[in-house]
């Protein structure tokens, strides 16, 4: 048997995880020295409450989980004779996977017959959500592990994600975006456009004046890079900006018609800690990232 894992940084909720049989690894964040494990310490994510906290000036931190914690997730599966496929957020954004590698190495030594596979979505939040769901869909459609891994090898780089942020202070604090101009501080009315690179990192690729231009930039990226996106999942993610996300969705509809579904997903609190509130992003199937 194969057990599927994903983590909460992919925006997959327990309900969706259940639909595909994913087991969910909880990636923590801390507010006021209190660590919260999503969907362990709460059942439902109150996104308004969380992002309002950020709006009030709170800057949460996030931390990597330990080797031991990975062991707790994985060992019961190996012990029960199951293999593992873990669809996770980007290795290039964290050192938590070093801890995972240690855990897997130890477990493989202990359970020599078992195998561990991973799909690095090379992103976080919306893009990882989209890929994790597509992977789940493939299994549901009866594809084998080999087929899914081969699909991932070709397709992960063909999901693009472009988004804009409202306030750079969250990104600047985490230092996880490259290419932000040296002295760019809190820009009022100007939004940097950021994308997930093929290396799985966030890279800034320009800035736009005003909300409309920023939204139009996202739509233009879909026009320029989009490839067969109607037959894949099309997801709009947001950090508690449902109206703004809906506006982007309307622009997408105006430009590309309504013969494909658009899904709206709120960004998980751990990734949101680095992005801040009022951001919106689109994820779509593309020629390249």
């Amino acid at each position, binding site marked *: 048997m194969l057990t599927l894992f994903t983590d909460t940084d992919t925006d997959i909720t327990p309900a969706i995880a259940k639909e595909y049989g994913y087991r969910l690894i909880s990636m923590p964040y801390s507010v006021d020295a209190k660590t919260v494990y999503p969907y362990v310490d709460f059942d439902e994510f109150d996104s308004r409450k969380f992002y309002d906290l950020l709006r009030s000036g709170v800057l949460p*931190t996030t931390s990597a989980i330990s080797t*031991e914690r990975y062991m707790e997730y994985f060992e019961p599966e190996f012990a029960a004779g199951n293999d593992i496929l873990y669809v996770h957020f980007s290795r290039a954004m964290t050192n938590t996977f070093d801890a995972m590698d240690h855990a897997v190495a130890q477990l493989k030594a202990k359970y020599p017959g078992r195998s561990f596979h991973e799909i690095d979505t090379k992103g976080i939040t919306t893009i990882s959500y989209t890929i994790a769901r597509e992977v789940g869909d493939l299994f549901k459609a009866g594809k084998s592990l080999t087929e899914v891994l081969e699909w991932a090898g070709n397709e992960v780089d063909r999901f693009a994600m472009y988004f804009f942020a409202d306030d750079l202070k969250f990104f600047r604090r985490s230092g996880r975006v490259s290419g932000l*101009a040296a*002295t760019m501080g*809190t820009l009022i009315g100007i939004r940097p456009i950021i994308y997930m690179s093929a290396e799985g990192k966030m890279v800034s690729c320009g800035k736009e004046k005003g909300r409309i231009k920023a939204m139009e930039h996202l739509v233009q990226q879909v026009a320029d890079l989009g490839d067969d996106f109607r037959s894949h999942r099309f997801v709009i993610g947001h950090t508690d900006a449902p109206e703004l996300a809906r506006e982007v969705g309307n622009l997408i509809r105006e430009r590309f018609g309504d013969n494909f579904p658009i899904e709206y997903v709120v960004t998980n609190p751990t990734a949101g800690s680095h992005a801040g509130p009022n951001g919106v992003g689109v994820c779509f199937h593309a020629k390249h990232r």
Partner: protein
Amino acid sequence: MDRIDAHLFLDMVRGGAARLGTGRKAVNDLNVFPIPDGDTGDNMYMTIFSGCKAAGNFLGEAARNVSDAMLMGARGNSGVILSRIFAGFAKGVEGVSEAGLEEFSKAMQSGVRESYLAVSEPVEGTILTVFREGVDAASGSNTLGEYLDRLVTAMEQSLEHTPELLDVLKKAGVVDSGGAGLLYIIEGMRAVFNGEAVQLIEESLPNASQAVDISAFTEDSVLEFGYCTEFLLRMQRSKVDLDSFDETVMSEWLASHGESLVFFRDGSIIKVHVHTHTPGDILNHCQQYGEYLTVKIENMTLQHHENHMDERFRKSRKAYGVVAVASGEGLVETFKELGADQVIEGGQTMNPPVQSFLDAFDRVNADTVFVLPDNSNILLTARQAAGMYKGSDIRVIPCKTLGEGYYALANLDTESGNPDEIEAVMTEAAGEVVTGLVSRAIRDSGDVREGEFVGISGKEIVSSGESPENALVSLAGALDAGSHDVILVFQGSGTAEPGQAVEALARQYPRSEVILKPGGQPVYEYIIVLF
């Protein structure tokens, strides 16, 4: 010389301490990360100094004793990491009586490993990077002498590079303090290896109460950085099973209850360095595992006020700096948030003198300084100051309104490294902006009665209204606000809440983003900036 024995090693440690002793205060002044509390040099010095009293007959033993003594004496983030470098080195030469190139190189690599392991979230651009890159570059040397030369050179280069890796360093115009401290130490060790005599002067160590200015934390101060909390805990058999105890449970808890955690276990002793707002919680929690050997808690908001910058490390000569002019608390804050190094208070009723600019240029201390005036008189003054100032290349962007200065600064991108290009982009940006002002008429003039509110653009009155809000909305219309992407409104210091005016603008100009910010400016009820 091709081997290092216990005697030479101990002398080298003392040489390292002596060299750091001379540079200690310079290192303090570099300290901006993770907390700018100005004590890195002192902490590292106290850490290595405690290792200087150690002894040993063969290298493995000497290194172990130095490491143990440093464990007891380690202070501060960089100090604790330093002690882990020596602990790793000691592990690497365990059982070795004297080290040749190969053993030494291996032990240094072990030092790198150990230093990274102790930090829960290693940050590059710090002492960790400087040591790692030094050791990487030195491996492959042919002799110990060459090894140490290459180590020092590579560490110098790595240190130079730290501001590129850590934004806070770049902003402050310094290199990493812990890395600089370690470079002093390694230089001192190399000097002894090359035959220089050790001159370890037992200078009085600074104690916290002497070095710290307690007036920096008053009755009204806010605890911004929390407390640097350090302790050595001896785990107790009565409390935990020492053989099966998993310290990661403890380190995970600490990582989630504080920042800048450095944590390691050495036998039954646990060393912790952590920044927290509630040290009591940390101490109470950890006592369940054992009893404290030593505890040190310092309020990090108390800065160590000294100034002994070593010119060698003085990077505050930045490539680029910005001086803006604005008046009003909110506006000054806005410019600072946007990245202005200095904001001179000035505006319509308050033209700053030339001297204010000259002083600001001095304080910025950059090769190229961009200046953003906020009216045409101030533009002239700024140009005059620029002509007089010889210390930097001063570029005055011809901004005649606050809005132009704001948008020019928003377009500052130093990526190209070409001041002409940067200036051109900023100047062009300033030219794209339309600024309008709302003010109360102080006398009858044309159709406007005294006490009414007028909308001004350039020198012209373009709108009027009975309330500031009416004047604002009609001003926006007169300036064709709808043709701009952003309508930024700064509210004046005495202006009442704008009520429906902002919603009216948003409704009227659906393709523009309307943003209201507290500007706190005098004279003008509103400043409207269109771009």
